């Protein structure tokens, strides 16, 4: 079952399209990493996902067919926004009470237990907590709602490495124990291989990459050839080219299951960071054909 489905999703602000032609099917029970340069459509997609923004065209349904923003969608999705906005003057205990009263499903004892475990006092004002504590509070409140989908918008950006580790450990544990799905918007590309199952890359208002991480890593290669003998590669879509007098590197995506390489070319695997930067730096808005079936 898919946890999120979009068809031709688009959002326009004035005369600019922040996002366009997004067709996504995100699998359930997985962590979907959403990456992209700032201002390139990522936040727009997230906002539509959690019901804060309405689409201009197309549809977006969640949790198996409910329109995003509908009561069923709101009930089943918990959102931790960037910078974890919480009411600064309310105490932690008040925040628990508030969240309890704004939701039908809320496991207050679970939230309390988790916060006690972390040493966060219920009498503390939310605004006085450290960055890591605020993140854990926001996360505890979100998870106590027993959501089916947890949406996180760059939650670990302001956190130190230990706080970041603890935060992600909590998210992963919730995945293991409750089987929740997670959509995580992140700039921390290095840790995505460890943490994400599925990758969606949005650049220049379009979805450029959408697939399981393993498949994507298999599909992309860095081809190095002598500049003098460089020629078109069949069955490959070139994402980025860098060349010097002697060498030309091309980051490619194999569009056919078997792509023939010229004899003098070398090919190596690329990591997520390299792959992502390649797309970021070359965001020509051409939709790429989806290749399925190439997997380890």
């Amino acid at each position: 079952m898919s946890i999120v489905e979009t068809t031709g999703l688009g959002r326009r602000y004035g005369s600019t399209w922040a996002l366009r032609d997004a067709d996504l099917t995100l699998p359930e029970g997985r962590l979907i990493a959403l990456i992209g340069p700032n201002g390139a459509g990522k936040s727009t997609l997230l906002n539509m996902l959690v019901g804060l923004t309405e689409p201009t065209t197309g549809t977006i349904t969640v949790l198996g067919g409910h329109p995003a923003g509908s009561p069923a969608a709101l009930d089943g999705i918990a959102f931790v926004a960037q910078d974890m906005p919480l009411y600064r003057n309310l105490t932690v205990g008040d925040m628990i009470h508030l969240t309890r009263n704004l939701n039908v499903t809320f496991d207050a004892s679970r939230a309390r237990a988790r916060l006690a475990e972390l040493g966060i006092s219920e009498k503390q004002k939310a605004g006085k907590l450290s960055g890591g504590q605020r993140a854990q509070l926001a996360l505890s409140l979100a998870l106590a709602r027993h959501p089916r989908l947890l949406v996180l918008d760059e939650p670990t950006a302001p956190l130190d490495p230990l706080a970041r580790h603890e935060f992600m450990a909590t998210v992963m544990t919730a995945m293991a124990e409750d089987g929740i799905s997670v959509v995580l918007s992140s700039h921390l590309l290095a840790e995505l291989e460890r943490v994400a199952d599925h990758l969606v890359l949005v650049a220049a208002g379009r979805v450029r990459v959408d697939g399981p991480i393993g498949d994507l890593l298999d599909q992309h290669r860095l081809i190095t050839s002598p500049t003098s003998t460089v020629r078109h590669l069949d069955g490959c879509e070139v994402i980025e080219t860098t060349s010097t007098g002697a060498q030309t590197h091309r980051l490619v995506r194999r569009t056919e299951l078997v792509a023939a390489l010229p004899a003098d070319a070398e090919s190596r695997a690329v990591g997520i960071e390299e792959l992502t930067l390649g797309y970021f730096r070359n965001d020509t808005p051409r939709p790429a054909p989806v290749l399925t079936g190439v997997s380890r």
Partner: protein
Amino acid sequence: MTALAPAPTLSVRPVRWHRLAWVTWRRYRLTLVGTVLVLAALAVELIVTGEHMRTAYNALQACAPVTSEKCHFMDDSFRNSHGGNSFLEPVMLLLPGILGVFAGAPLIARELESGTFRYAWTQGVGRMRWAIALLLPGALGIAALTGLFGMLVNWHQQPLVSYGVSSRLQGSTFAVTGVAAAAWALLGFALGALAGVAWRRVLPAVATAFVAWFGLAYVAADVLRNRYLSPLTTTKMQLSARNFQIDQWWTKDGVRVSNTKINSILEAGGAQISGHSVKIHVTQGGTDPIQTLLSEGYRQVTQYQPGSRYWAFQWIESGWLVVLAAALLGATFWLLRRRAA
């Protein structure tokens, strides 16, 4: 695997209203305390001066004979010390607007400004129910409190009105008495709420809403209130202060005479005119220029609203205010629904 199955039937129960009541209470706690403190402070002043006034009034009523020097003196001092506008009156007049706008504007504007709407509007309750739970009790609450205060102002005014020192229709108090006080506060609230959703920032919202409120209050006092019911006219020279004078002019044989002509006649009769003030010295044995005018067939026409129309006007004014406030709140909800992150 990805077959688009029809959306499963909605099995989500909505959040119960009594749960949201806690949210409302928590949000308004400080506003409530602040409002009550302000109103209480003013109330104390009103009660204290009101008691003084009543004492003086009772003494005045008891004074006999009415035409004696002593009673005249009492009368004069009563009028002087209680009849004038107290320094608080401008403050009190703005009060419903201040209370309403400050209660209504930050409600949604602060959420938008601080980003907490990203938390509040993604909870299971949804933004519309959340807004209803916050806006409606707030609107009713601020209206009720201000309305109670308005009743107190009525009580305070009562000796002055009975004695004929001032009119209940006068602009300096009308909007802060009775039902109108509640309605003006309600309008302030609705303006604040709409400005809050529109501006998404507290300060511009408060400023805009208050300016709009003030504009409407001015128009109501200066123009509208004179016309709720057709004004009456009289040619009596002395109109009881209970009535509210709108305009005054002279006519001869049914035709309106310009003020310049009247002024020249008065000056010829010995009056001194500077600007709007006419000083008439009646010398011993001389003639009052006013009497000269009257004897020549000039008549002074006064257009006024009788004080007895007070409650009628209160209901008329409150009526259109409530309708306007309801429309503004409706617009607030409409804009809220459309508001994109």
